[in-house]
């Protein structure tokens, strides 16, 4: 098989869209430097990582950046 399945977690969705990645997720509202969450938000960080990995098993929208909501990000 040619290639390796990848998934991108981006906090710069506009820039990432230009590269048309095969699978990409934007945790909505996360600032640059917080791709997975804020310091110490261990459960949230893990959830984002798990969701990114699950994108590999879901119907894909290649070239698009999928927004996901994580309201707990703003609670810390």
């Amino acid at each position: 098989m040619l290639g390796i399945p990848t998934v991108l977690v981006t906090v710069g969705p506009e820039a990432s869209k230009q590269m048309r990645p095969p699978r990409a997720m934007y945790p909505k509202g996360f600032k640059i430097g917080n791709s997975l969450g804020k310091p110490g938000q261990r459960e949230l960080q893990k959830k984002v990582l798990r969701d990114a990995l699950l994108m590999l098993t879901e119907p894909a929208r290649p070239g698009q950046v999928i927004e996901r909501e994580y309201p707990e990000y703003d609670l810390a």
Partner: protein
Amino acid sequence: MATLSRKCVPFTPLERDLSKSRVVLVTAAGVHRKDQTPFNIADDLGDLTFRVINGDAANSELMVTHHHYDHSDADQDINCVFPLELLRELQAEGFIGEVGKEHIGYMGYTMQLKKMYDETAPQMAEYVDKKCKADVVVLTGG
């Protein structure tokens, strides 16, 4: 490596269960081991090199060298941009098959885009494929 049209989205399906997959991280967030040469932030053109990070590295052994984003949060908790520790937990839970033995950090800032595209990126892809034998790659930025 085959040449793909730049208009093409190079989509590769996952053909095995996550629970049987070896996962490798590739980050543009400037992460490296403290005992490795830091990325060269003195060069306005950026740094085209990458660092290989062992899969059992402790968070305390890692640091960030990057001058084009605020990494103060990652300095406190590297999981903000490089969730290697969390990946190990997902392995222990059986969610993924295996954490790769090696992962890659580079500094995602360069004014030498052609060299990055033509040289560094294929070198990293080759490493991830042939050395890491990744089934899956998770990419993170800063």
